C-alpha cells in the first residue's frame, strides 16, 4: 500500500469488521490496510454505507475490528483513547441539550481536568475560531443546525488532541459557509500540524483539503484507491479552478463510480 | 433468555433476605412461647420454630409457596379447582372484574384522549380535573360508589369494575394523549398538503403513531385495574375474590393467607402485563414499528 514520508501515526493492516445483525452479518470493512503519517490530512470518500464511519470509529477505538491489526502511535487505539489522543467530530452535532454552547465546549476540558482559567480562555479562543463568539450562553436548540455543527467542531478543537477525526462535519452547511470553514480548517491544520482524518461526500471538498484521498467502495467495505495529492500546501480557494485540481477531481469521481456499481 | 440467570439471582438474594427477616421477626414469638412453656431454646431450635409458625409475623417463603400450591395446584389435582377455598376461584372472580373494568377504563380513556386531542375546551378543562381525580383516595370513595350504584340497581360485577375502571382510565388518557400528539410537524404538514380531513388524519396518522404509547399505558392501566378490582372487593362485602382473601386473612391474623393472596394478585398482574406485552409485540411487529 501507500507509504508516506512522515513518521507513521496510524497503521492499519488487513482490518476486517463484521457486524452481527438480526438480518445476518454485515461485512463493513474487508481487508483494509492504510498508513497515515504524522501531520497528514486524509479524506475518506465513498458511497453511503461503504464503511467510512466504521473505519473512523475503529481508529478512535470506538469499534473493535474482528480481524487484522491497527496501531496508533504504536499503541492500540484503546490505549491511545485513554491517553486522550483524539478529537472526534460526529456526523451529527451531538451537543448536550442541557449545556450551553460554552458548557458543551467546556465539557472535554472539565473531564480532562484543565483548570478554570485555562478553560475559559480556550472556550473563548475556539468560539472565535468558528465565529460563534457571543453565542456562548445560548443553548444548542436555540441555534441553527449549521451553528450547532460549528460548535461541535469547536468542542473537538478545544483540547490538545494530536489526532482529529471528523465525520462529515460540514454535511449540513451551505456552500458559502462550507468554503469558509474549509479555509479555516486548512489554516488550523497548517498551524497545529495535527493529523486529520476527514469523511466527506463532496469531491471538491476532499480534493481541496487533503494530502491524501482514500476512496472506498461498499459491500464489503474496502479501499478501492488511495490518491496522494500533488497540490501544494498553500491553497487559496480558487485553486479549485486549476487544471490539477480538476484532474484530481476527475480521478476521484472515476474511482467512486467504479465502486458504485449496482447501488445506483 | 439472557434475563433468566440475573432474575434468578435477584430472586435468590431476595429469598435469602426474606428468610433472615422471617427468623428475626418471628423470633420474639418463638422465645415467648418457650418462656410460657418454661423451657430454654437454642438459636437453632428457635430458627427452626420461626419457619413453621401458624400465624407468623412474617411467613417464610416456603410457607407462602406451600399455601399457594395448596390453594391452586393441589386443588386442581383433587378436582376442586373452583371450590371456595381455591385461589383459582378467587383469582377468577377478581380477574373477571379486572377485565371488565379494564375494558371500560381503556375505552373511556381512549375516548377521552381523542376528545382532548381534537377539542380545545376538553383539552383545557378536563386534564387538570383528571389529575385531581387521581389524588382522591379510592378506598374512601369505593364504598360510596358501591352504595350509590346499588341504589340505582347496579349490582354484582359492575360496581367493582367501575372502581377498577376509575383507576385504569388515567394512565390510558395520559399515554394516549401523548401518543395522539406524537406525530411531528412534518408528518402533520404532509397530510395538510394532501388536504386530508380530520378523520383521515386520525386514522392514518395519529392513531398508528400512538400505538407504542397506547400499549405502554395499557400495561400500567391493567395493573391499576387489578388493584381497583381488589379495592372494590372490600366494600362489596368482601365475599369472594383475592381482595376478600386478603381482608379475611387480615381479619383473622392469617398472615400466610394474606401473603399468598398478595402473590397470587401480583402473579395475575404479571401475567396480564405479559399478555399485553405479547399483543404489543405482535401488533408493532406487523406495523413495522418493532425491529
Amino acid at each position, binding site marked *: 500500500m501507500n507509504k508516506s514520508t512522515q513518521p507513521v501515526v496510524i497503521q492499519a493492516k488487513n482490518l476486517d469488521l463484521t457486524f452481527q445483525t438480526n438480518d445476518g452479518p454485515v461485512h463493513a470493512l474487508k481487508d483494509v490496510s492504510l498508513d497515515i503519517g504524522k501531520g497528514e490530512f486524509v479524506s475518506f470518500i465513498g458511497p453511503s454505507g461503504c464503511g467510512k464511519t466504521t473505519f473512523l470509529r475503529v481508529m478512535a477505538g470506538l469499534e473493535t475490528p474482528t480481524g487484522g491489526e491497527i496501531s496508533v502511535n504504536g499503541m492500540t487505539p484503546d490505549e491511545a483513547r485513554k491517553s486522550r489522543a483524539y478529537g472526534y467530530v460526529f456526523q451529527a452535532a451531538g451537543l448536550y441539550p442541557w449545556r450551553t454552547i460554552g458548557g458543551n465546549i467546556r465539557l472535554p476540558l472539565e473531564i480532562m481536568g484543565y483548570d478554570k482559567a485555562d478553560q475559559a480562555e480556550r472556550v473563548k479562543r475556539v468560539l472565535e475560531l468558528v465565529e460563534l463568539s457571543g453565542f456562548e450562553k445560548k443553548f444548542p436548540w436555540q441555534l441553527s443546525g449549521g451553528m450547532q455543527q460549528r460548535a461541535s467542531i469547536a468542542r473537538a478543537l478545544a483540547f490538545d488532541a494530536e489526532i482529529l477525526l471528523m465525520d462529515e462535519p460540514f454535511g449540513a452547511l451551505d456552500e458559502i459557509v462550507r468554503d469558509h470553514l474549509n479555509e479555516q480548517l486548512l489554516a488550523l491544520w497548517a498551524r497545529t500540524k495535527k493529523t486529520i482524518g476527514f469523511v466527506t461526500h463532496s469531491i471538491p471538498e476532499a480534493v481541496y483539503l487533503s494530502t491524501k484521498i482514500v476512496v472506498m467502495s461498499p459491500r464489503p467495505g474496502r479501499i478501492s484507491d488511495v490518491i496522494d495529492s500533488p497540490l501544494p500546501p498553500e491553497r487559496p480557494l480558487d485553486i479549485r479552478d486549476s487544471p490539477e485540481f480538476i484532474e484530481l477531481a476527475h480521478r476521484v469521481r472515476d474511482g467512486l463510480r467504479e465502486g458504485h456499481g449496482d447501488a445506483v | 433468555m439472557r434475563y433468566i440467570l440475573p432474575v434468578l439471582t435477584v430472586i435468590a438474594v431476595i429469598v435469602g433476605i426474606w428468610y433472615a427477616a422471617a427468623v428475626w421477626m418471628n423470633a420474639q414469638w418463638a422465645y415467648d412461647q418457650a418462656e410460657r412453656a418454661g423451657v430454654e431454646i437454642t438459636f437453632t431450635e428457635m430458627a427452626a420454630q420461626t419457619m413453621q409458625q401458624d400465624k407468623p*409475623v412474617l411467613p417464610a417463603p416456603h410457607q407462602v409457596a406451600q399455601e399457594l400450591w395448596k390453594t391452586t395446584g393441589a386443588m386442581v389435582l383433587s378436582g376442586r379447582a373452583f371450590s371456595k377455598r381455591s385461589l383459582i376461584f378467587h383469582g377468577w372472580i377478581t380477574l373477571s372484574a379486572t377485565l371488565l373494568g379494564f375494558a371500560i377504563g381503556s375505552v373511556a380513556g381512549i375516548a377521552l384522549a381523542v376528545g382532548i386531542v381534537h377539542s380545545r375546551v376538553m383539552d383545557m378543562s378536563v386534564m387538570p380535573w383528571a389529575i385531581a381525580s387521581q389524588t382522591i383516595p379510592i378506598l374512601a370513595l369505593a364504598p360510596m360508589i358501591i352504595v350509590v350504584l346499588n341504589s340505582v340497581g347496579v349490582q354484582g360485577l359492575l360496581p367493582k369494575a367501575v372502581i377498577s375502571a376509575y383507576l385504569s382510565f388515567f394512565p390510558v388518557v395520559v399515554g394516549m394523549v401523548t401518543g395522539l400528539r406524537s406525530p411531528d410537524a412534518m408528518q402533520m404538514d404532509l397530510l395538510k398538503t394532501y388536504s386530508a380531513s380530520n378523520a383521515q388524519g386520525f386514522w392514518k396518522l395519529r392513531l398508528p403513531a400512538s400505538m407504542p404509547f397506547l400499549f405502554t399505558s395499557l400495561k400500567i392501566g391493567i395493573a391499576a385495574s387489578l388493584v381497583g378490582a381488589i379495592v372494590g372487593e372490600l366494600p362489596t362485602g368482601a365475599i*369472594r375474590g383475592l381482595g376478600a382473601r386478603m381482608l379475611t386473612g*387480615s381479619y*383473622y391474623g*392469617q398472615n400466610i393467607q394474606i401473603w399468598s393472596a398478595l402473590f397470587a394478585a401480583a402473579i395475575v398482574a404479571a401475567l396480564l402485563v405479559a399478555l399485553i406485552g405479547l399483543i404489543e409485540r405482535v401488533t408493532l411487529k406487523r406495523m413495522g414499528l418493532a425491529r
Partner: protein
Amino acid sequence: ADDVTLQLQWVTQAQFAGYYVALDKGFYEAEDLNVTIKPGGPDIAPPQVLAGGGADVMLNWMPSALAAREKGLPVVNIAQPFKTSGLMLTCWKDSGITSPADFKGKTIGVWFFGNEYPFLSWMSQEGISTEGGEDGVTVLKQGFNVDPLLQKQADCISTMTYNEYGQVLDAGVSPDDLVTFKYEEQGVATLEDGIYALEENLSDPAFVDKMVRFVRASMLGWKYAEENPDEAAMIVLDNDETGAQTEAHQKRMMAEIAKLTAGSDGSLDEADYKRTVATLLGGGSDPVITKEPEGAWTSAITDAALASE
C-alpha cells in the same frame, strides 16, 4: 314470595348464625319470604346501604344506629336478638393493669366506626382523659385483628367474647396471662346486634307484615342455633364464600354467641335501651348523640311476631 334483603355488619361468621340457620332450614321459606343475606365488612356502613336502598333491614349496634338517626337517617330498632353485650377490653396481665384506674398512661386499641362511644363514655365515667399523656390513655384505632396485642403495640385491645378473644387464645396465649374488662360488668354496655329498618317503610302495612314474618323466622333460627350450636356453625361455614373460616373457630364462636342471645325472644327490653342511651349521652366531650332520641325503637313488630305464635 316477598323479597327481603338483610345487610349484616360484618363478614359471614357465627355471630349471624340465626339468620343463616333460618335460611338454610327453610324458616324464611315457610313464612313465604325470599331472603338475601349480604355480608358486611370494615368498609360497609349498614345504615348507608339501607339509605341507598341496597337492603330492607340491617343489623347494627345501637350506638351506630342512634348516630345515624341524629344524622337524619331515621332507622328504627324492630327487634333485638342479642340480650347481652359481648364487648370487652383484653389486656396483658404483665402490663400491671388490674382495674380501670390503671389505664392511665397505657395504650389501648379501640374500634371506631361508631363503636368508640361506649369506650369514651366509660373513660369519662372513670375520669380518664383519652388524649394520651401521663394521666390519660393513648387511643389507637384498632384494625381488624389482634396483632396489636400480640405484638405488644398496645397494652389492651377491644375484643368480642366470641371472636377476637378466642383468636388471642388461639395464638397460644394462656388466659392466665390476660386480664379482661367486660363492658357489661362495667355498667357501660350498649345494645349490640339489633334488627333495624327505615322509619318511613314502617308506615306501610305490607312492609310491616313482611318484617313480622322476618323477625319471627329469624328468632326461630336463633333458637335453633342456640340448641344446635355445632350444626349452626357448620351451616355458617357452608355459607362462607371466602373459604377463610375454620370449623373450630366457628364452633367456639357459636358457643359464645349462644350466651349472648340467651334470654332474648327478639323483643327489646326498654331498660336495656334506656341504659344504652344514658351511656351514650354521658359520653365524653364529643358525644355521639346530643339529645334523647325519640321513636328509635318499636315493639310493634315483635309484639305481632310473638302474639301469632
